[in-house]
């Protein structure tokens, strides 16, 4: 539920059911428990920067607990679409939307939506690792503290669990009091994932999370995505098509703001239906 407490009290309606539309499942990869339902749904959803329509009437279902990759050339609207899911675009004054974007069947841009609660449920990791200039412990504990957690023992449990989930615990467990900025780029990025996981989100948005990392650190992040798959709904924007094909179950291809094709990843990369998709992924774009 994304509504503010006040709005929730005034609302007499029954709790919204999860969407269970008849949508495809990625065929070859292992099924995940609870997967197959639409966690996020866009319906004729457009995003404007002033007059400019950056994302044009996108309709799509993002499956719960699967990994969805978003690919497309620079300026195609993929990051704009991703950032819209936890309302990061609200910071841009000229940005407005039309159509509907639903998270758990509730309107992300609804009048009573609580953005803070939304961003707790929909975490985000950015292109460049951005740890706070604080200790590793404080970085992870920051979110839970913000949400009112004060019990030190519980905080320690959350920190350990989050760092373990982000596959970085073994590397930092003996230096939790050290400044996070002393970690390598790859470690910092996994720390940022751990920081996002600490507030127990349902969705992870990854905006080119490995573009600033070397191949080894990239591989660790990709392994981590596979580890988290099945527990979280993950969306990743990437320019690296091999990465999209390696880590995702379904792939969305954006071009000039339009969602050209959304298909199971193995279909999109072996036999895309749209010639524009084919030209883009085979490097035939002029």
């Amino acid at each position: 539920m994304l509504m503010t407490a006040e709005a929730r009290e005034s609302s007499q309606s029954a709790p919204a059911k999860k969407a269970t539309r008849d949508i495809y499942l990625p065929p070859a990869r292992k099924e995940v428990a609870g997967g197959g339902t639409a966690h996020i749904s866009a319906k004729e959803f457009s995003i404007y920067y002033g007059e400019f329509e950056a994302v044009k009437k996108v309709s799509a279902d993002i499956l719960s607990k699967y990994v969805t990759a978003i690919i497309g050339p620079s300026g195609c609207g993929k990051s704009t679409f991703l950032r819209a899911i936890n309302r990061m675009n609200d910071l841009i004054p000229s940005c407005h939307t039309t159509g509907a974007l639903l998270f758990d069947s509730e309107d992300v841009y609804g009048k009573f939506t609580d953005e803070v609660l939304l961003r707790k449920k929909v975490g985000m990791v950015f292109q460049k690792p951005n740890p706070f200039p604080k200790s590793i412990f404080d970085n992870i504990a920051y979110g839970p503290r913000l949400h009112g957690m004060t019990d030190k023992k519980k905080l320690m449990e959350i920190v350990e669990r989050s760092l373990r989930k982000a596959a970085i615990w073994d590397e930092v467990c003996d230096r939790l009091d050290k400044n996070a900025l002393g970690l390598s780029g790859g470690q910092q990025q996994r720390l940022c994932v751990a920081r996002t996981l600490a507030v127990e989100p349902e969705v992870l948005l990854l905006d080119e999370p490995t573009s600033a990392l070397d191949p080894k650190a990239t591989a660790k992040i990709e392994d981590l995505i596979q580890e988290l798959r099945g527990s979280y709904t993950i969306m990743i924007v990437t320019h690296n098509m091999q990465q999209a094909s390696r880590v995702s179950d379904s792939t969305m291809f954006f071009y000039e703001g339009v969602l050209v094709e959304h298909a199971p990843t193995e279909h999109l990369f072996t036999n895309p239906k749209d010639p524009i998709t084919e030209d883009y992924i085979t490097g035939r774009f002029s």
Partner: protein
Amino acid sequence: MSERPVHELIKELSQVLVQLSDKVLENFFFSLNAVKYRDEESARQIRMVDEEIDKAEVDLEERCLAFLALQQPVARDLRAIVTIMKINDDLERIGDLAVHIIDRMPEISPEMLESFAFEKMGVHAGDMVKQSIEAFISKDRNLAEEVCALDEEVDVMHRAAFKKVTMLMKTDEANVDELIAALSISRYIERMADHASMIAREVIYLITGEIVRHKGDFYENLLESLDE
């Protein structure tokens, strides 16, 4: 828009494949002639050419594997490389069939050969290979489907040879070794037509992305024909 080097490379690999198919076909027809005229010198050359075909097949496969590893192709580029690798394998096996035919040379007389329609059958199967390669070059789905349909005609010829051999074997003056050699040659030509049919199916995959290898009544027909 000019082609990128990666796409030029796919074209180059396709050309190498087409050149290999010319060599394989030529060697196959030489083998039928060599058996017909009991030409030992031609037989020796056919074996040498087959060794060259084997080397060319390995070389092309290595180049395709390097392409897959280094270029990581997707979509039609991926299908093109996979198709080249599969056709390459079919061509190498057709090359082996030419050698199998000349292996039967000492066992069969020109008179016995003359009594079977192997030349006609060979030309038919050879045409199928040519057309399947043409379908590959021109990405012509209709032509590829025509090749698949032609396979039945070669199967009919093979069944006729099978019936003839079984009939002759029942006679008192039957030379069983010679008849088995004749049946083997018929079988080799029929296998060549099968490979042409496989190549055509691979071309359909290249064009459509759909694997049609086990679709249709191709195998059912074949099984039924063997039961008859």
